[in-house]
């Protein structure tokens, strides 16, 4: 689909300023399950879609915010390229705008580049109804403040992403996934880090239920030589798409609340009762269990990390780890610098933002 809705979206924002109407930015709705709904009326970017520039030798793709991740991946596949962040398509629902705004990455991101690592530029519709361009389509660009990266993971509180330029990478010639039994997370991470220190082209590491999954991406010769050397069983590469799209059985159990913890990779197992799935070589851990939010957050904070509560229908628990008290003012000031009338996505991240 190729459609430029910029003028219409801009008019909606200008009208909202006049009517003092709050706006809740919506894409394909693929992440509604995990986030609070913003206040106000919906402002959909889903129709504002289409790849506007893609030159494979530049390894850069520019697309409107409503373009689906599925469409982008299929266009990249034709040129043997891919998104390094392995962001999930959630069927054909996830949009580029929503993916960038929520910084939603998959297992490869820890090795090949997360969304904030690969965003090169963007067009933003700010809270004054202005269409602004920051960054560009080149890999290096230090003119002005790096607003493009600030918008990654900003959950729409600073404005409406209209267009994003991202760095893409060549698809590896060969990939293999190994399943290796490990008694503990510690043993699994010791194993993976040994491989990383030997500069093996590891591209994903996950551990749960006593089984570690490890993906190696490289040329045919490297990949074929490894199973014998490393041990374990060769399993389907499809595992990583299931993990990225949260389709593994671990995610299906909806009886207990789900949390996503981001921690320094070497953090020991946290003393929380329940079940765990560890991704990103230890840096991202999914937790399901009976423990209360305060305990989860305080342990996480003590370990130098943060915990995101994945909403289960109730809005009683805050989605995000509270801000450090001395960062609150900077957040409030930044919000007002971009969205002086407080139109966008109120309360999605924090109250008063």
């Amino acid at each position, binding site marked *: 689909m190729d459609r430029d809705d910029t003028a219409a979206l801009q008019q909606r924002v200008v009208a909202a300023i006049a009517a003092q109407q709050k706006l809740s930015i919506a894409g394909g709705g693929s992440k509604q399950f995990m986030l609070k709904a913003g206040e106000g009326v919906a402002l959909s970017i889903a129709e504002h879609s289409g790849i506007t520039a893609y030159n494979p030798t530049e390894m850069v793709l520019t697309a409107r915010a409503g373009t689906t991740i599925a469409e982008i991946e299929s266009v990249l596949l034709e040129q043997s390229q891919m998104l390094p962040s392995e962001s999930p398509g959630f069927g054909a629902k996830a949009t580029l705008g929503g993916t960038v705004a929520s910084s939603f990455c998959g297992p490869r991101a820890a090795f090949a580049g997360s969304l904030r690592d690969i965003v090169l530029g963007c067009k933003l519709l700010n809270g004054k109804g202005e*269409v602004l361009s920051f960054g560009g389509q080149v890999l290096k660009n230090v003119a*002005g403040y790096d607003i493009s990266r600030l918008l990654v993971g900003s959950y729409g509180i600073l404005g409406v992403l209209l267009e994003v330029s991202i760095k893409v990478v060549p698809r590896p010639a060969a990939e293999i996934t190994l399943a290796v039994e490990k008694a503990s997370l510690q043993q699994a991470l010791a194993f993976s880090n040994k491989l990383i220190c030997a500069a093996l082209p590891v591209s994903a590491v996950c551990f749960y239920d006593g089984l570690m999954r490890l993906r190696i991406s490289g040329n045919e*010769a490297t990949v074929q030589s490894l199973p014998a050397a490393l041990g374990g069983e060769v399993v389907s590469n499809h595992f990583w798409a299931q993990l990225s799209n949260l389709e593994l059985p671990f995610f299906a159990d909806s009886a207990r609340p789900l949390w996503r913890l981001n921690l320094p990779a070497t953090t020991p197992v946290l003393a929380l009762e329940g079940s765990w799935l560890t991704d990103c070589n230890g840096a991202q851990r999914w937790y399901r269990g009976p423990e209360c939010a305060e305990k989860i957050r305080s342990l996480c904070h003590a370990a130098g990390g943060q915990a995101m509560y994945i909403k289960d229908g109730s809005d009683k628990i805050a989605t995000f780890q509270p801000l450090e008290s*001395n960062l609150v003012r900077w957040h409030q000031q930044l919000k007002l610098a971009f969205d002086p009338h407080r139109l966008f996505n109120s309360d999605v991240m924090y109250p008063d933002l």
Partner: protein
Amino acid sequence: MKQAHDPLLDTALADVDAGQLTAALQATMPSASVLCSREAMKPFECDGLVSYRNMPLAVVLPETVEQVQGVLKICSKLGVPIVARGAGTGLSGGALPCSNGVLLVLSRLNQILEIDAEQRCARVQPGVSNLAVSVAAELHGLYYAPDPSSQIACSIGGNVAENAGGVHCLKYGLTVHNIISLKLFTAAGELLEIGGANAGLDILALVIGSEGMLGVVVEITLKLLVKPPSVSTLLAAFDDVEVAGQVVADIIAAGVVPAGLEMMDKLALTAAEDFAHAGYPRDAAAILLVELDGYASEVDADVEVVQKVLAAGGATQVRRAENEAQRALFWKGRKCAFPAVGRLSPDYYCMDGTIPRHTIGEVLNYINTLSAAYQLPVANVFHAGDGNLHPLILFNANNPGEFARVEEMGGKILEKCIAVGGAITGEHGVGREKINQMAVQFSDAEIAQFQALKDALDPAGILNPGKNIPTLKRCQEYRAISQCASVELA
């Protein structure tokens, strides 16, 4: 030499009682750490962009983080501008002092506080030199990836301020990709920790490359990488610059991401060869240096692919470094290229635009046209893999009016970069130098958004004023002036 204070660029100078300021500073730190005399301050009047000079009211060299905080609190209370400076190797006048302000030199905060081999990270103070981190990490088989050519001297704090790059960015990223967290003081002297696993907006990414306009960084946690077990470097010669430019795009199109992909034209490679005796072919019109690193079987396969692309693309000669000594020599020529070119002429002016790779040939031709029109020789040595040009314009500052011509020509090169879809600076920063071209790259609304952001985090505007973001008035003036070009192109 450039005017220090420009009423169009800068807000009116605040009234500062110099006596009161120095007395307060001297009460905060040993008096030997506060310089006020012209003689003592002279070495600090410029950074690596020596054609821009200015004397501050005082230069302070704190030895502790607490002293830094003390300076900020004094300046914030008195409304005195503060310019932070690391090693002073910057090339855009980002650390040019403010005439009614304090120059805050962070070079004495030079401790590597911790190297954590298990987590592969290092905690350092801002005055530590870039290279010192890799030297200290080598013991653990680790290194810090960003490697600007000035890495022997440049400081990590300065690298953060400019989002410094280097020759290995294509594969390993810029400073912003290699920093885990920062401790910084706000303009008012409040300590913030940003990055790491902190929740909220990605303020870390915003601060990196902000040219000391949003805060003063006092501690940095860096990512360290495992030293690649296998490294291979190819040197390819071409008899045409444009052909070499096309091969750069071809290598990427073949699905290879080299660790480094550098290009030098005839003037640059001859100067480098004379200086470093790196074994560069003097008869070539251009050379490419292609470095591949990683796991041995991956590197071997990539080398094979690149060799085929180079041959098919018209390389007249391809050499693979036979050993570590020869590899180091290939790079020595490249890393010495700036000083080597410096020997050809009394002065040179280094540009830093970035362009999409497929326009390299077009832009190099345009630079040649400008060079002929302005009668100023240009040597090109640059990071071809990421489209980051470094044209070096040769001139003699003692010839009246010559520097003005150089700046005008440099401005045109940057504007060409914008026209082909690139940017005015890839890694040196806007600083004071490229502030005019900001008006070409950005609209008034975009400049106003930058200013709103700056006002939000430094409401009194005391951190590095007059740099990076021009006033709207200045933008309008520059756009009007640049309508009428003074040198006609053939």
